[in-house]
């Protein structure tokens, strides 16, 4: 075991300079000067690169441009340059801090729930059992439900204070049914979104758990380590990378959840996230300058998260 470990450590440190066997023929081609192949390769890459470059640069430039303008298409149109006015006004509007808070609570809540339950569920699904394949299918299913469907089904058939299933459950226990989406609006959104994303976290963590060396766990068991310790000292550290990946990818998607709020509260009752606020500024009140400044903030925020994710993914490309 020890030698195996040092070997794999060697491989890790050696990896970047050592050329991979598959890429050797291509590298040889470079030297022998098959310019033809390289030119062809560039041409083949061009459509994808050009399209994505356009997709990124054109709207981004326009958003930046509008963010420095007073621009109200329905009330006078382009009213000239205003410098950083929109940026200041977006941040100082009374809706801004509540939206930051709503975003943090919703994203943080969903992350906490999905990662904690995801680790537990993945551990459970990794145990020997009958019909694991079927259970896995049941657990993954919510991820494939389109956001508008899951939001509407939860809103009407579960959270409705009169006819919702949860109201029936509450009444069965003699309690007054909750008006979920007004009295516990943020929690309701967190519940709906967590239900959608728990499968994703579980599936990825399960994949990671399955790559865990079972000999290590068996050795620890033989040495008399109780299950909780085995989990805390072997399984959890092994999962740290997968957990990081889940956290980062989910954060990027969760920062821009839209449909779940659009069809439930429309941003009322403290569920107006940053994304929803920008959407309202742009499409509902048609204040393009202000909305664009908000958009730039959202882009910066997403990029901060993205940088960390890219580092992990980039490292993986080398290995």
């Amino acid at each position, binding site marked *: 075991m020890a030698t195996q470990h040092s070997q794999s450590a060697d491989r890790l440190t050696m990896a970047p300079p050592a050329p991979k*066997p*598959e*890429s050797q*023929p*291509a590298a040889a081609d470079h030297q022998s000067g098959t310019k033809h*192949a390289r030119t062809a*390769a560039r041409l*083949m*890459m061009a*459509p*994808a690169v050009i*399209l*994505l470059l356009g*997709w990124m640069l054109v*709207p981004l430039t*326009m*958003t930046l441009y509008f963010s420095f303008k007073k621009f109200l298409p329905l009330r006078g149109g382009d009213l000239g340059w205003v410098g950083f006015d929109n940026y200041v006004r977006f941040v100082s509007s009374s809706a801004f801090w509540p939206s930051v808070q709503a975003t943090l609570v919703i994203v943080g809540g969903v992350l906490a729930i999905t990662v904690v339950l995801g680790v537990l569920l993945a551990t*459970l699904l990794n*145990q*020997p*059992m009958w019909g694991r394949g*079927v*259970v896995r*299918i049941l*657990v*993954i299913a*919510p991820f*494939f439900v*389109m*956001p508008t*469907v899951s939001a*509407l*089904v939860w*809103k009407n*058939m*579960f959270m409705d204070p009169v*006819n919702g*299933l949860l109201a029936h459950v509450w009444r069965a226990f003699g309690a007054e049914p909750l008006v979920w989406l007004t009295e516990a609006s943020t929690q309701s959104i967190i519940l709906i979104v967590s239900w959608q994303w728990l*499968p994703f976290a579980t*599936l*990825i963590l399960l*994949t990671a758990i399955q*790559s865990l060396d079972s000999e290590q766990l068996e050795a620890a068991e033989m040495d008399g380590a109780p299950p909780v310790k085995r989990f805390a000292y072997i399984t959890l550290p092994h999962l740290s990378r997968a957990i990081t*990946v889940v956290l980062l*990818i989910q954060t990027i998607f969760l920062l821009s959840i*839209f*449909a779940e709020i659009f*069809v*439930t509260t429309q941003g009322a009752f403290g569920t107006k996230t940053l994304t929803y606020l*920008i*959407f309202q500024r*742009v*499409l509902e009140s048609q204040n393009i300058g202000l909305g664009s400044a908000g*958009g*730039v903030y959202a882009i910066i925020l997403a990029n901060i*998260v*993205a940088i960390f994710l*890219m580092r992990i*993914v980039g490292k993986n*490309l080398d290995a």
Partner: protein
Amino acid sequence: MARAITSQRKALNTALAWGVGLLIFFPILWTILTSFKTEAQAISDPPVFLFFDWTLENYSVVQQRSDYGRFLWNSIIIAGGSTILGIIIAVPAAWSMAFVPSKRTKDILLWMLSTKMLPAVGVLYPIYLIFIKLGLLDTKTGLVIVLMLINLPIIVWMLYTYFKEIPGEILEAARMDGATLREEVLYILTPMAIPGIASTLLLNVILAWNEAFWTLNLTAAKAAPLTAFIASYSSPEGLFYAKLSAASTMAIAPILILGWFSQKQLVSGLTFGAVK
């Protein structure tokens, strides 16, 4: 003795896992069941679980009243079209990055991924404006293009991951035998890459089918896919639980089935190969 303990533990695990699994699946199950009830049964108190008069009426009502077929058709065109177009553009790119890598390949891959991180709401108005100027608002063509672009990075990444697993020696042998680049791609790589392309196709159809920012904001009546059709139930009139359930069941059924086939690819596809 030890055997008895493990089989006991296995039974416990099974019971626990099935319990949790059914709990998580329950909202979907409940929706499917409700779709076969009458509107009165759908809101009966106490709720009925299995023992009601099963009816298919809701399905025909949804189709007649709201022309479900048209939304379904829009969804198929938008999800299928954007995926196929994306694959046509991504295959050559992924091929060249996997087999003729340069120093910049990694940077290009990471940069492509970074475009996926762009928050949609940040570029909502520019896209809206471009769509109006080009007459693309509320057209299937417009949505095919936008969804193709937002999923293109994932498509390139997935294909790249699959292509890299094809051994380079085979290509070299083909080159020795005098195969041209075109022949190499058509007759050697493509057949070997079919499984990878198929799973990329599957995952991206799912992602495009469920996309609910651009499809809600860039369509009105003509090009609206199922996401928008379902959203129109958010302010309904009268009794509608059974009909909502029927519409929801029809909207998610195809993707649930496709999704179950694509479990494995889901992980490496959605984590950009960071977890395999």
